[in-house]
């Protein structure tokens, strides 16, 4: 804290450390998903994602060559080959199932009368004998190998080309964009009327908007579904656009009104004196000046619609062709709980877009939050 020179540095250290721990704690879950989406199914189900940065240990055995593979070198018979694949590294080996890690790489042992076996650090083995080999089956060489950290982008390829995610992505886009754009327009006009026009009932309407901010969506589901059926809209995009527009409006009107009220009165008054109509004032003055508030709401609404599950489940139907990404994820979690790599990758793709929007436009999001209120779920 300022003004306490003696304790300052140790306190600063403690603050830095505490902040770091907190940030770490909050980042780890998402990081886990991110890392997992680059691992294949076996890796995910045999080791934790946090272990993926160190190599993974595997045990197994390979069979040496048989008598057919022997060559004669310098008077002895030799069978040669390798016990490792690709970039694996050998850490131990053995010749019996009881002691599969008996020897170190580079050791030599005698497996039978006069037969010497050497396995080198590079993973090559060399079996030598003074007499010709008579092996019809290869000797078993037990190995303990370490595979280097391995990551793959294959999941992304698979998920994007099949499995319905591409379709779900398009569906989500189709739902989100109109459901973000349309309420903004409607709300902007209403907010202007509430902020700068004189008419009876203005205070009451403003209060009503504040009240409607907290109405639980759940209340609206059944009545609206029936209303849509009666109107002949049924389940589909039109219905979900209308629903999201309705649900987003209280926040939009509230945010925009609060912002517009704060705009300088003189500009608007002088425009009025110059004979501008309300429509002109709105279009030429209010709308451009309100850009930050419009952006704030746009981000809120975008994130909210993109991440919504309930409204989409109810108003859009649940067939494969109609699923949005949250719905698809839910289905993946339920029916294919074992396909971790698909789940992780799909989840990461579905959160990537909102995260991008979030990091790119954080400034506006924060400003919107500080403008007074947020809609929650």
């Amino acid at each position, binding site marked *: *804290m*300022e003004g*306490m020179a003696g304790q300052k540095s140790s306190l600063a250290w403690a603050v830095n450390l505490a*902040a770091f721990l*907190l*940030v770490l704690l*909050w980042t780890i*879950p*998402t990081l886990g*998903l991110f890392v997992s989406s680059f691992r294949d199914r076996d890796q995910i189900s045999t080791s*934790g994602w946090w272990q993926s940065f160190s190599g993974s240990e595997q045990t197994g055995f390979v069979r040496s060559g048989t008598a057919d593979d022997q060559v004669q070198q310098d008077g002895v018979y030799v069978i040669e080959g390798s016990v490792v694949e690709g970039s694996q590294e050998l850490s131990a080996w053995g010749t019996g199932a009881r002691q599969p890690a008996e020897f170190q790489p580079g050791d030599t042992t005698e497996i039978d009368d006069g037969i010497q076996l050497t396995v080198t650090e590079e993973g090559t083995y060399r079996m030598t004998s003074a007499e010709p080999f008579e092996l019809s089956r290869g000797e078993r060489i037990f190995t303990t190998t370490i595979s280097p950290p391995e990551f793959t982008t294959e999941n992304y390829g698979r998920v994007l080309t099949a499995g319905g995610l591409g379709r779900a992505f*398009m*569906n989500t886009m189709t739902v989100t*964009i*109109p459901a973000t754009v*349309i309420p903004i*327009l*409607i*709300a902007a*006009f*209403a907010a202007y*009327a*509430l902020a700068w*026009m004189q008419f009876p009932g203005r*205070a009451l309407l403003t*209060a009503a908007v*504040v009240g*409607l901010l907290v109405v*639980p*969506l*759940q*209340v*609206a*589901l*059944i*009545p*609206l579904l029936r*209303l849509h059926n009666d109107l002949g809209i049924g389940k589909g995009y039109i219905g979900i656009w*209308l629903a999201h*527009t*309705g*649900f987003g*409006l209280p926040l939009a009107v509230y945010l925009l009104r609060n912002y517009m009220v704060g705009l300088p009165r003189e500009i608007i008054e002088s425009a009025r004196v110059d004979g501008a109509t*309300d*429509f002109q004032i709105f279009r030429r003055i209010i709308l451009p000046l309100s850009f930050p508030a419009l952006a704030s709401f746009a981000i809120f609404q975008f*994130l909210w619609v993109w991440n919504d*599950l309930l409204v989409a489940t109810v108003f859009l139907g649940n067939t494969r062709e109609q699923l949005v990404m949250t719905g698809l*994820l*839910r289905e993946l*979690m339920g029916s294919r709980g074992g396909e971790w790599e698909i*789940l*992780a990758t799909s989840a990461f793709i579905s959160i990537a877009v*909102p*995260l991008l929007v*979030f990091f790119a436009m*954080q400034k506006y999001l924060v400003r919107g*939050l500080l403008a007074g209120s*947020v809609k*929650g*779920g």
Partner: protein
Amino acid sequence: MELFWLAISTIAIGVFGCVAWFWGSNWILDKIYPPRGDRAGDNIRRANQIRPWLFLGPAIVFLTMYLVYPVLDSLWRSLFNSDGAQFVGADNYLWLLGDDKFQESMLNNMLWLLVVPALSTLFGLLAAQLTDRIKWGNIGKSLIFMPMAISFVGAGVIWKFIYEYRAAGETQIGLLNWIVTQFGGEPQIWLTLPGWNNFFLMIVLVWIQTGFAMVILSAALRGIPEETIEAAILDGASPLQVFFKIKVPQIMGTIAVVWTTITIVVLKVFDIVFVMTNGQWGTQVLANLMYDWMFRGTPDYGRGSAIAIVLMILVTPIMVWNIWNARKEVR
């Protein structure tokens, strides 16, 4: 591809429709009451009486149709039987009182209500205070704030990688169980652990909401006049005293706003429970219970609506409080 064109044309029609309405209705109004000629003054006055309603019209229609009407309709429907054919009075509500699942849901919702706003606000306050004092604070803030952008379903998947269970002796691939076994503990199936599983679900929401609390509280902390803090330091207050006795009391109003906002989120919590446990193992909450009655098996609109109305009643105090606060602002 046709989907793409459908979306584009909807935006176009929507935007064009809105603009056409606002512009067209204004134009017609000016035609009917032209703001010139010998009756100009009278006309302008009349036009200005009507114009606000043209601006507000679409919003009022939407708000009425999509929020006001459903509340009334639900209220009405909750007085009828499952298919809405027979009036049953308060039977649905009486049934709720005796229903085990409803009691469990109410209890769980109350538990959520106690834990999540408190923890989120606490961590938010801590995060705000810590990150305001360090150089890389803004990056730290972004990272703590980030879960806000993640859907509840996405969060469910993310936390699945934390809570996953493997039998003892196998390699644990859930982080929590791995840590537990590293310290010699027994791996647990966290999401079925009676009583505790609720807390594991709550943690997910705390993780999401802390960033929100932090952003608001951080702004409030910065708004505190420097003089009060300096005066306290000169008087020999320790950092902790400064924080709890000088700073926190001054941002009490903001803490209340954060608390109530998160409370509303918590009351309506649905997705997290829906995807992670679906209300099994004693984790049912009101919103998911309502979903069950409305959309699973044979729908019972009467009971479902009754639960929805209970939710509505629970948020009403906050609604009134919000309106009360807003009225003070409106002047």
